[in-house]
């Protein structure tokens, strides 16, 4: 069975400082892993995905994530936060087909001026 845990429900950073959103997963197979971002009252936007190619994945808006199999982690990072990054972020794991997708509970990112 697969599962995903986002370790922080809320993260607060100052503008211009690094962002780290933590995600751990469990999967019986080789999973695909995703990060999505959701701004208030909007749909989810795909930030990046890992599909068993390079373990360091670069996404949109300067975000990247590293797949670490030994730690079963897929943490999302960004070197310098921008006010527009304030949103909710979801870590997602899937074992092949989309209906076997598991969403994390979400991490709300606050960015202070």
């Amino acid at each position: 069975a697969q599962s995903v845990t986002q370790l922080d429900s809320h993260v607060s950073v100052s503008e211009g400082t690094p962002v780290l959103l933590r995600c751990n997963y469990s999967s019986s197979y080789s999973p695909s892993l995703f990060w999505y971002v959701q701004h208030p009252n909007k749909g989810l936007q795909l930030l990046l995905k890992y599909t068993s190619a390079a373990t360091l994945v670069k996404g949109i808006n300067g975000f990247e994530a590293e797949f670490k199999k030994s730690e079963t982690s897929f943490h999302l990072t960004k070197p310098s936060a921008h006010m527009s990054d304030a949103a909710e972020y979801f870590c997602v794991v899937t074992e092949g087909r989309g209906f076997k997708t598991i969403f994390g509970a979400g991490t709300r990112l606050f960015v202070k001026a």
Partner: protein
Amino acid sequence: SQTIHQWPATLVQPVGSPLSLECTVEGTSNPNLYWYRQAAGRGLQLLFYSVGIGQISSEVPQNLSASRPQDRQFILSSKKLLLSDSGFYLCAWSVLAGVTDTQYFGPGTRLTVL
């Protein structure tokens, strides 16, 4: 490129009234389609998915139903809304590429049942 539309964007309905939410996808053929609900303070709950016309699978028993009358059209319905049906409803599509099924989401419909 592919786009996904949902309407209406917002909806306020009385308890006991019917519901119809529509989702359409452009720029792709034979997509997998999904309906999710996001209740306040909770994560995403998969309600229905469809792998083809007329093929609907339900993940959670509830007051809602789904239909797929055309390849790129997915409809979420209810005969009588409950207060607990309030939430943010998201439609998504995917096409299996290799071993990866990446989902792309629509803008969502905010439903308030009073």
